[in-house]
């Protein structure tokens, strides 16, 4: 039960953070990505703010036995810089730059009842499912 409350509250605080910083707004994000035009550096300050808070806590807690409301910490163990990381991140960046939406802001912006947000999120879910399907067909095991 507690883990469910924590999940929901974490999501709410995350969504408020995206609203306060206006990162929910694709136009604001495109302002950051328009490095060679009229540049808005705000996104860097969002990342610095978030990392300043989370990095010390990760450092202190990652070697503890268990989290408060779950059996163990689940941190990705992959270390290799592989083809998937590079191709995937490169592809994500192209999509991000086309509209100014990444997954968090896109989902959060559903609250604003904008039709384009809905189309973006549905396409993103389509991308997840398509990748899973391709993964099954051409890459038997990972």
């Amino acid at each position: 039960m507690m883990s469910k409350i924590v999940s929901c509250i974490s999501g709410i605080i995350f969504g408020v953070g995206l609203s306060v910083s206006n990162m929910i707004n694709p136009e604001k994000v495109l302002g950051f990505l328009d490095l060679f035009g009229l540049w808005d550096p705000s996104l860097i300050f969002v990342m610095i703010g978030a990392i300043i808070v989370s990095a010390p806590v990760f450092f202190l807690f990652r070697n503890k036995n268990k989290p408060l409301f779950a059996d163990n910490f689940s941190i990705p163990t992959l270390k290799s810089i592989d083809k998937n990381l590079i191709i995937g991140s490169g592809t994500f960046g192209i999509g991000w730059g086309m509209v100014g939406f990444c997954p968090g802001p896109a989902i959060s912006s559903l609250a604003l009842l904008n039709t384009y947000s809905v189309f973006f999120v549905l396409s993103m879910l389509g991308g997840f499912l398509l990748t899973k399907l391709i993964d099954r067909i051409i890459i038997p095991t990972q």
Partner: protein
Amino acid sequence: MNIINFTPISAFAGGLLIGLAVILFFVGNGRLAGVSGIVNNALVSKQNRTDNFLFIVGLILGPIFYVFFTKNNIPFLITSSLPIIITAGFLVGIGTKIGRGCTSGHGICGISLLSLRSIIATIIFMITAIITVKLIG
């Protein structure tokens, strides 16, 4: 380089809140608040499905609470056409799934954990996004 619309204080304050959400999810549930992973898992995996679903619900409630309590409106503008939006959504879905993370998972959580993978992923998606804006903007 010309700088416009720079809002360092609200950006930093919003960042602190996102960091707070990340540590709450980590210390409470032992998980990283990478949104692409949470949404993807909510879609395709039974494990932690309710938690993932509730995180997504919270993410959507966030802006509603913000508007309700602060009485501020949220500036929001999409200028892209529908075909571009659909293509971009697909690319973001495919890319974050193959690259195992997005701005929150790699850019915030991964960098906070000093993961070399995430640092490289973040540099790559920033570069391709900046090039994309340069080309189509």
